[in-house]
């Protein structure tokens, strides 16, 4: 693993901070949506859109792109914000979130906005679609190779399929069917990433319907399991590098995140799962983000 240069980490941190501010702004403008999840995944999305993914914002359908599937569609504000900051569309368009005629639907729709890959919201269906994409890619890769036995099939697939998941959606049966399928078929070109923030609408995941031991469950289904701090850029990038080296199993990265990360009032508070800030609250939250909690004087 090549450690990230401190300058790169600094750059990613600033980008993530700008994305968090956009999330607050768009949710206030929308007046409804989810706050904790998007803020918690801002670092992961930043790492992917600004370092990991092979993609082209000016050509979202480029055939050689990495596929990023968002299974838990309700956190899509973070994806929209990351995409806008990456250049897929103007940042101002973020304020149309959830409004009539907007390409930024309340839950992501593939046919509305290029670059989304799938439509999601109903939980538990993202990994199956990611499996289908990864399986299809591998079929073609092995069909093109005159001697597939000479190399691993995974090595012939240049691009990867990534699937971001919530932790609570592991309560859906469909999801485990897909976990079984990927394990059986040794989909080494597939990486799942779980936003392990331990919250869901009705409370803590471990009270509502316990998921632990999540890592052992995946191992039992023949997956490589990596656990990381989802706010540490070096760990995020390092884990993805390890998934690229794996040739015989799909990988799941369990990213431990803080729901609402970056805004102290929201952090760890499950009641913010499906709530958005009021305008006055947003002012305070944005100030906290802009000043990095009072560490710098950057509040206008």
């Amino acid at each position, binding site marked *: 693993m090549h450690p990230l240069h401190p300058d790169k980490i600094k750059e990613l941190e600033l980008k993530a901070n700008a994305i968090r501010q956009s999330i607050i702004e768009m949710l206030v403008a929308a007046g409804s949506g989810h706050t904790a999840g998007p803020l918690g995944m801002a670092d992961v999305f930043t790492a992917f859109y600004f370092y990991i993914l092979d993609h082209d914002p000016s050509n979202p359908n480029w055939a050689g792109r990495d596929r990023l599937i968002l299974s838990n569609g309700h956190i899509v504000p973070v994806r929209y914000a990351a995409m806008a900051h990456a250049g897929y569309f103007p940042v101002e368009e973020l304020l149309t979130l959830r409004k009539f005629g907007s390409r930024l639907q309340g839950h992501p*729709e*593939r*046919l509305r906005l290029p670059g989304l*890959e*799938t*439509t*999601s*919201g*109903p939980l*538990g*269906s*993202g*990994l*199956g*679609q*990611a*499996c*289908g*994409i*990864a*399986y*299809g*890619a591998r*079929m073609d890769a*092995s*069909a093109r190779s005159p001697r597939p036995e000479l190399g691993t099939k995974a090595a012939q697939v240049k691009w990867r399929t990534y699937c971001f998941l919530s932790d609570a959606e592991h309560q859906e*049966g*469909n999801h485990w*069917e*897909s976990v*079984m*399928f990927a394990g059986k078929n040794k989909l080494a070109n597939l990486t799942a990433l779980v936003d392990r923030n331990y919250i869901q609408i009705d409370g803590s995941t471990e009270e509502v319907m316990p998921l632990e031991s999540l890592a052992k469950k995946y191992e039992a289904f023949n997956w490589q399991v990596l656990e990381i701090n989802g706010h540490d850029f070096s760990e995020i990038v390092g884990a993805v590098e390890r998934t690229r080296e794996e040739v015989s199993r799909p990988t799941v990265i369990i990213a431990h995140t803080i729901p609402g990360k970056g805004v102290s009032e929201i952090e760890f508070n499950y009641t913010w799962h499906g709530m958005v800030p009021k305008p006055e609250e947003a002012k305070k939250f944005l100030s906290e983000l802009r000043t990095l909690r009072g560490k710098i004087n950057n509040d206008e």
Partner: protein
Amino acid sequence: MIDQSKKLVSIRDGYGEGLVLAGEQDERVVVLSADLVDSTRATAFKERFPERFIEMGVAEQNMATVAAGLANYGKIPFISSYATFSPGRNWEQIRTTIALNNLPVKIAGHHAGVSVGPDGATHQALEDIAMMRVLPNIVVVVPCDAIEARKATVAAAKNNQPTYLRFTREKSAIITNEASPFEIGRAEILRNPSASSGQGADCSIIGCGLLLYNALLAAEELAKEGIECEVINSHTVKPLDAKTILTSVKKTGAVVSVEEHQIAGGLGSTIAELLVANLPTPQEFIGMHDHFGESGKPEELIEYFGMGVKGIITAVKKVLKRKS
């Protein structure tokens, strides 16, 4: 006259043959099965194109989502199971990941109708047409015999749309032939009394699936009594061929719809929606009247639930009395 001497063939056999043809014509065609390879007739495809066959295990929800992913990537997936499970169990996955995404996944629902027979109500899909036709983007096709099933399967592989294909299990009569025209979205007139006798028809019998054979037999019986029926094969429930149906009904002024499905939401409902808005017409419905099926022999169940030749004759006579 209908030739009753021809051998009976299961409609699902046509699907099996169609899959192989579709696979030969387009290498993007892949077939997924949820632990029902043989009874959904995917065996020949599996043997011919093993690298393009995917065994999903007993997991219909995953089958729908994986197929959505394969289609998203660029494949043309057919998903094979019993209709009570697919689209029965995986309806939401079909709605969100296939219909809303508008991806060309072909959902093959087998063992539809009470003609499944001894397996009983759990395995007799009677709601699948309704479940599929309420979804935007999805095309719904119900072939009437094995030949049409083969043509429908090949056509579905080419239409670039999410498509539901409905098949039955029991061996049934062949009522079309190799030369019969087939086009998704276009109904075919199977019996046209005005063409043969020069006399106008009294009633339009519009159906889909294996019961069309009973409709033809009923029309022959009725003709002996001087009641002429135009029999229409509306194999595509969605998009409905409004033109053919309205043209016929305009002449006859009476309709009997025939399907092995719940009356609520099926072909008959689709026709009624069309007529009420365009040409209000008395209509009788042959199908399941808010009942589940049960175990028994296919033909005895069809008779018991009023979908036999007698039932159709009674319905025609009833609707004629309502003609103004």
